Structure formats: C-alpha cells, structure tokens
C-alpha cells in the first residue's frame, strides 16, 4: 500500500468493571505489529469517569507518542460546558448508548451550537448503534449549523441502513468499519456509498481488536485504490480538513 494505514477510532485504558489498564503501550504495540502507521485515540477514562480528566490524559499520552497518536476528545453533554474540554482534539466523540443519554437533549444542542459558533469543524465520531439515533443527530447537526463531517460507528443491522441513508443524502456523513465485521460488509458499504465515505476504525484495543478489523478490511473485495481510501486516505483527508479544536 502506498498510503499508510491510519486508524480513525481507537481507545486505550480500562473497560469497566475491569480497571487499571494504564497507558497506550498495548495500542502502540498492536499498531506496530500490524502495520498501522497512525491512529486517533481516546482514553476510556473520558467515557466512563470524567471527560475532563480523560481528555487531558488523552492529550498527554498522544503528546508522548511522537506523532503516532492523535487525540480524540469525548463530548459528554451530561457534564456542563463539556464543549470547553475538547481543546486540541482532532476528533470529537459522542457515545450516547454507552453513556446513556438521549440525542434530543438540550445540553448536546448547546454544545454543538457553541462549537459551531467558535468555527470548529473537527469531524465528529458518533456511536450510532441504536436505530434512530443517527437520524436525530443529523437533524441536530443541521439545526445547530455544525459544519464538520460525521463518522457513524457501531453500525450493524438497522443502524447500518440508517447510516447509508444519511450518507447518501449528505456527503459529510461517513461510515466507520468498526462493526462491519461480516463477510462482504465493507465491500457492500463501499458499493452503496462509495469508497471515499467508508473509513477504517478498529475500536481497538479497549473495545475491539486492531488485527481483526484490519484483517476484514484486507480481505474485502475492493480495488487497490478503494482499499487505500478506506484504510488511510479518508482519515488523512478528514483530519486535514477538520483541524483541531482551538
């Protein structure tokens, strides 16, 4: 592959109830072992404990990585003014299912408005596992004037169909491969929305396997050009266009 492999969605840290999984060494080891040149990552502490402490931890660990890791920030609307806790983030992550908050939720609307008002256009990664959530988010994105791209993750079954419908209607919407693990699923997604709209994200190492998601992408029946877009080109383009949260 001419393009380096880039993983848009990785996580490091513990997954409750198991605690004490420090640092990014496991993630970096897996990336090195399987030829992943760079990744956007976040600390699970930001999901399960505190977006403030977690996002800071993410920034520190990424700063120590020599450019291999780029920071994602968790926007947790349950926390007041959580949009102010994202400075330096290259990806803004929303986990409504895991964190159990609704999409129709004034704090989320306010946070997106505030980000749009500051001119932020960093891509958003949205946990779209529940049917209907992505549709509601899309309406909110339009209503708040947020202009960044939206990557939909956790796609299977009805959530996949929903993501495809949104992607076909608006070019800012992309599909993440983290839950596209079935035979033919990545190629199917590409056939429906185009290779420039499907982006490799593993959910590894805290929520998945870097090697498994990479293996599925590598055996997918795609042209070399399309595979390069999915495995790295699209992430490169998204990160370049989005910049960082100021």
């Amino acid at each position, binding site marked *: 592959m001419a393009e380096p492999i880039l993983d848009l969605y990785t996580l490091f840290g513990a997954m409750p109830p*198991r605690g004490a999984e420090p640092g990014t060494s496991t993630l970096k080891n*897996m990336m090195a*072992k*399987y*030829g992943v040149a760079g990744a956007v990552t976040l600390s699970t502490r930001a999901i399960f404990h505190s977006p403030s402490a977690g996002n800071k931890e993410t920034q520190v660990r990424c700063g120590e990585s020599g450019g291999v890791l780029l920071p994602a920030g968790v926007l947790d609307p349950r926390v007041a003014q959580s949009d102010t806790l994202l400075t330096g983030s290259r990806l803004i992550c929303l986990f409504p299912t895991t964190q159990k908050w609704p999409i129709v939720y004034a704090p989320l609307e306010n946070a997106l408005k505030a980000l749009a008002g500051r001119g932020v256009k960093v891509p958003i990664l949205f946990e779209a596992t529940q049917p209907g959530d992505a549709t509601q988010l899309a309406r909110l994105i339009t209503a708040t004037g947020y202009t960044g791209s939206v990557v939909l993750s956790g796609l299977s079954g009805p959530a996949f169909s929903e993501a495809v419908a949104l992607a076909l209607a608006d070019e800012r919407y992309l599909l993440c491969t983290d839950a596209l*693990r*079935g*035979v*033919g*699923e990545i*190629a*199917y997604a590409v056939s429906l929305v185009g290779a420039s709209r499907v982006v490799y994200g593993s959910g590894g190492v805290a929520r*998945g*396997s*870097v*090697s*498994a*998601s*990479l*293996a*599925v992408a*590598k*055996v997918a029946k795609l042209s070399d050009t399309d595979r390069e877009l999915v495995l790295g080109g699209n992430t490169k383009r998204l990160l370049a266009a989005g910049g960082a949260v100021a």
Partner: protein
Amino acid sequence: MAEEIIDVHCGWGPTPAAPTWNQTETVQSTLAARGITMACLSSLLARRYDPIGGNETVADTLANPGSPVQLRGWLVVQPAQHEESSAQMRRHLYSDNFVGAALYPNPATGEPVALEYSRELLILIRRYSKALLIETPTAEAMWHAVEIAGFMQGVKIVASGMGGEEWRAAIDFAVKPSNLFLDIAGSLVPEKIRYAIQAMSGARKLLFSSTAPGCDPAANLAMMDEAGLSSDEREKILFANANRVFGWGTGSVDSPADVTLSAMGR
C-alpha cells in the same frame, strides 16, 4: 503450513452483504481463502423463521458439498415445533453429514435457550449421541447452557458466542462442566481467549468458530493471532478439540500462524 482449521459454527443463507452465502461455490471459496478446511453450517432461515425448511436446504447442500472445504451441518431444532423437529432428527441425525442438533434463542423474543422450555426436546436429542450447539450471546444464555450441560451429562455441548460483550461472566459460568465447550465467536476481544485459558486451566474446552457470514473468519483468526497463544493452544482451538467433540480422528498442523497471516494478507 497449516493443514486443518475446523470452523465449528457457520451460517448458511444469504445476507445483504453476502447475497450468495447460500451457494456452495461462494461459501467454499470464501472459507478456503481464509484457510478453513472444515465448517459446520446451520441454516439462517432455520434459526430465524422456518426450522424445517431451512434445515432441508442445508441437508441438500451437504449431499453435494463440493470442495476443498469439508462441510457438515447442525440441525436446528425448535422446542415450539417438537413433533416436526423430532421427525427431522430421525431423518438426518443418523447421517454423518450432521454433527448434531442446534438450539438458538427465541427468534421472536430473543429469550435464551433454557432447560425449562427445552427439556422434552433435549431428552430426544440425547438419544442420538451427537453434539448439541447452544447459541450463547449473553452471560445469561451461558448460565442456562451450563444448566443444560448438567442435564445432558454424556453429551458434548458447544456454547457458541462466549456471552458476547459479557464474555467475562459467561466464561466464569462455564468453567466447571466438563462436557461444555466454548467457541471463540462473539466479541472480537483477544483478551477473552487468554482469560478463558486462564479460567479453565488450559485451552482444552475452546473451539474455533466464525459464525460467518455474520463475522468474517479472517477476523476471528486475526483475533487469535493477537491473543498471542502458544502453538499447543492454537492447535487445540483450531482443530484438535473439535476432533474430540465430534469424535473424529486427529489431524496434523505445522504452523497455524501461517494461515492467520495469510488471511490478513501478510
């Protein structure tokens, strides 16, 4: 070079992403490209809607299975269709083409397979001296599988799915019954394999499965690679334990790692 990988639980039937997963050539070529040498199929139609009709499509396929992957079948049985399932077991379970019977959660409600709803059917299954597969997508489902394993002493039971996201609790439940085997399908978390080996004091009760087309076998093989298993552990999981469960002869393997790397295009 690896010579044997037994995928103990595969699906049979089209999906939107794999619309020809009911054609022998597609299934054969896809599995062979991942290094699978034998696969045990169960009908997706039978699991979700029509057990009798779905099983017959698998039986027809097994009559002309093609090559190079050896295909065997699971006969999906349904407690709510006791008489029909009983008749179909009489017709097919004496054949070597079927490795055993399979029970899945209620397709309408998602309720796990439980002894209280399946007792009469389980008594029938026991007569055939074949394996029983129980899909266990949650820890609760595994708890019920453990109870069934106690009821079905002498029958080898394959719990498929390792409890999904709840793999830790599911593995803890499954430690004791000596006739209960776990496949590695479910969550793609390499850590669960190491956890199971530690909890069960070895890999003797673990089996390889993909549940394709729902999950590409390349993913499960890669997950095994990432788990960092010894060659002995890999051999047991990839085929030796399955040979024991199904009562087949032992195979040989030189380097299962080569197959994993091949599946990943490395």
